């Protein structure tokens, strides 16, 4: 039996490979260490989160008054196009891939991802995508103005007449992002199938890993459709093929099928890992096993399968025939069941627990409550008659931001706080974290709740101006939006200062179960000095059994004194 000390020797800490720079500079190298790549993903995507957020502030600035008076209509259209695209392709996907990259190998007891070089290449395509996206602000005619859906024929109209225009750059960016994600998908799926530690059977695999598996399987079956659609669109624009161009006999609805065949399940590529995060964070901070773990784990795969057959619910108002509307209404409603199972499991997990309101716990709880709300409005949207009234209105915008901001971004924050001590060996500042949570939770409600009534009243989405009757709800939403902008400041402050001089807290400050807590913080290059041999399930709270046979029980580590005070106060 090896004895691991609380602190890894300075020389080994977080060193990506022998001879690599042992400081922040390693994050700027072509590293093949999944932990370095994970952090590269997370930091890069956060940069884009701030850019996407800034764009949304300008949009909310425009929408604080009914008239289009802050920015021109073309600018507004470019803003929501780039906001949506950047938030999805440059923030949510990459940051979740980053978390998965960092955590999955550690959680399954592997030394790295299955294909470390492929992993690094996947990452370095992300900045390329980002540069293409941002470059479109500089080309004549400006960025794409056709929304993140890029529905033809609007996306085929090219007012500049140039071949190099914002729309073409946008398509290239999305296609490259697709290729990067497919490579990532192959890597994750292989890693999860092949590299689990001895003894880690499927039902000893953490729920987060299951959720990443589900999400990445979607990437593999879905992305080819999106990428194919994007290429056909590109051909229509550049060499004048007629897949989608109606004036040349093409069918624009066909594009919608390609697009949504991927882009509905894509919601689950984003939300499944967030579910996984909730499933990991709750047991630790409520000190109870994940209730219904097997069902929660399996429901991730069920969601993967079912969500492949619901895409037409985005096209109920297109020229979709009645039977198809009804069929896809039923399949869409069925997705509510595996999602619901998870929510019940989480509530049962905290029930009767020993709950601590740490920052990650607050974000997880907040995220779950928002998801509950968003899930219910999602069922509304699945109903064909209701969707006919509310689709393409602010009701939908409110709904999907509740998913994206309320549940997914909250989940991401929960993960970053929860695993921050693992990644850096230091603890974040609780006070700042709680301030961050309070601002985020209030901001989310104030921004996105008012969008629902505005939508029910009939305010269309993607409008730079609106009728006076909607002004009240929009003023509220704008104030909330600025509050959300503000909420990122304590977060940045917290992360930067805690990384530099936060309290050193050892390997397992939460006294958590899970393989990732068995190794040093930050983990050494090879993750584990000795491959762990798993002997029990992942959430052994309250039963004093070892998780692995060859490394001492992590539950024995004590809380650092300062934390004990804060967390219980």
């Amino acid at each position: 039996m090896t004895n691991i000390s609380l602190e890894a020797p300075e020389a080994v800490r977080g060193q990506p490979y022998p001879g690599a720079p042992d400081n922040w500079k390693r994050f700027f190298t072509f590293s093949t260490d999944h932990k370095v790549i994970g952090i590269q993903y997370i930091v890069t995507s956060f940069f884009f989160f701030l850019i996407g957020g800034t764009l949304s502030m300008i949009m909310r600035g425009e929408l604080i008054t009914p008239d289009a008076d802050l920015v021109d209509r073309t600018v507004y259209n470019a803003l929501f196009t780039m906001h949506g695209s950047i938030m999805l392709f440059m923030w949510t996907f990459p940051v979740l891939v980053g978390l998965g990259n960092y955590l999955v190998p550690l959680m399954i007891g592997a030394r790295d991802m299955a294909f470390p070089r492929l992993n690094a290449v996947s990452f370095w395509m992300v900045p390329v995508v980002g540069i293409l996206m941002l470059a479109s602000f500089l080309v004549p005619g400006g960025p794409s103005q056709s929304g993140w859906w890029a529905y033809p024929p609007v996306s085929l109209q090219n007012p500049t007449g140039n071949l190099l225009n914002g729309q073409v750059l946008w398509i290239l960016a999305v296609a490259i992002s697709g290729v990067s994600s497919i490579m990532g998908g192959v890597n994750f799926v292989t890693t999860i199938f092949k590299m689990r530690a001895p003894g880690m059977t499927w039902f000893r695999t953490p729920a987060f890993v299951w959720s990443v598996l589900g999400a990445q399987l979607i990437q593999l079956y879905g992305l080819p459709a999106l990428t194919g659609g994007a290429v056909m669109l590109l051909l229509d624009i550049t060499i004048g093929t007629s897949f989608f161009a109606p004036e040349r006999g093409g069918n624009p609805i066909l594009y919608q099928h390609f697009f949504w065949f991927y882009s509905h399940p894509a919601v689950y590529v984003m939300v499944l890992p967030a579910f996984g995060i909730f499933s990991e964070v709750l047991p630790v901070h409520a000190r109870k096993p994940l209730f219904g773990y097997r069902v929660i784990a399996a429901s991730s795969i069920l969601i993967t399968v079912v969500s492949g057959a619901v895409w037409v619910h985005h096209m109920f108002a297109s020229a979709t025939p009645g039977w198809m509307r009804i069929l896809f209404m039923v399949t869409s409603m069925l997705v509510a069941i595996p999602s619901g199972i998870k929510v019940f499991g989480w509530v049962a997990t905290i029930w009767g627990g020993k709950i601590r309101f740490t920052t990650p716990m607050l974000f997880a709880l907040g995220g779950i409550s928002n998801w509950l709300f968003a899930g219910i409005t999602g069922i509304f949207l699945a109903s064909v008659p209701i969707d006919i009234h509310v689709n393409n209105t602010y009701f939908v915008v409110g709904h999907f931001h509740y998913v994206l901001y309320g549940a997914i971004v909250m989940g991401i924050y929960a993960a970053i706080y929860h695993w921050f001590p693992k990644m850096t060996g230091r603890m974040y500042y609780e006070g700042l974290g709680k301030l961050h949570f309070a601002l985020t939770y209030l901001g989310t409600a104030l921004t996105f709740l008012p969008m629902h009534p505005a939508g029910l009243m009939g305010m269309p989405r993607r409008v730079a101006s609106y009728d006076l009757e909607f002004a009240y709800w929009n003023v509220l939403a704008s104030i909330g939006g600025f509050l959300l902008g503000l909420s990122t400041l304590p977060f940045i402050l917290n992360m930067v200062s805690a990384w530099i001089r936060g309290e050193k807290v050892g390997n397992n400050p939460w006294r958590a179960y899970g393989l990732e807590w068995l190794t040093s913080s930050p983990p050494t290059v090879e993750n584990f000095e000795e491959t762990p041999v798993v002997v029990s399930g992942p959430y052994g709270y309250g039963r004093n059994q070892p998780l692995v046979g060859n490394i001492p029980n992590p539950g024995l580590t004590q809380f650092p004194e300062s934390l004990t005070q804060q967390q219980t106060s």
Partner: protein
Amino acid sequence: MMKLRAILIMTVYAILVAMTSLWMAKQSYSWFPPEAAAEAKLLDDLFSLFTGLGTFIYLGVIGPFLYSLVFHRASKYDMSDGPPIEGNTWLEIVWTAVPLVLVLTLSFVSYRTYEKMAVRGPMELVHLHMPQIIQPAYAEPFDSKPQQEIQNAVETAPIEQIDVTAKQWAWIFHYPKQDITSTELHLPVDRRVRFTLRSQDVLHGFYIPAFRLKQDVVPNHEIDFELTPVKTGTYRLRDSMFSGTYFAANQADVVVQPFNEYQQWLADAAAGSPTPAFNRAAFEYSQANDRSGTTKDKVAVRGWDTIPPAPPPVVNYAPKREQES
């Protein structure tokens, strides 16, 4: 003893939740614009049902959730773990079965409502190649009780036929019988109206919130669409499918009026000579591109290139209201 108390608390909570849900279900009617079409009534009832059930589920879950957050917190120096309960097969079966039954019910009710709305005209039948399936629903569009009168009116009155053309960025309504063109949509109350929707360029969305109805207008497709206005007044038609630069300004008024007034309007319009109508998109475009700067509007940031809007449509009738703005 403990058990009894728990059951009591749960019962009281369930009753409170049920009452709140009922209240919300009633409340939901007030979140909408006026019910100006028969379809709107159907939708609002369905929405109310969803709101009631949704509230019930939300509170039903959030209650225990908040309860444990408040009462199951670790006390100050308590470093121990909670009870290691991992699952409960019976409970798991119940909470899979209940949502399953619930969503299947909601699907069925939604289907019935959709059938009653019968918003798709005969074109749908042609596309489907199986008219007999749609026909019954089509012939019986309404709830029997509250809308008996409307139903009678619909069955006896001939259907009005109106051609709708959408383009970047204008709505043009053509009344083929009288050969009248207008940028304001006039409809007779309590009559079934059939539209033929066409787009000249990109996707548009035919959306009248007061009717709760929406249909994308697709280039190269003629889409038949039906509805029955039941309340006189002026409502707003909005483009719901993003159609480019002046998308937000692509709106029109919808005037629902008694049948005789409607006929009077048709007669008056037929007498009017065709003139170019005011068009918001064309107007804004000319202002933004006015080099002399005399009519510059007050926009802080000028933007990028755009498709020039189509010239203002030439119509027999154009609303006054828009000319003023």
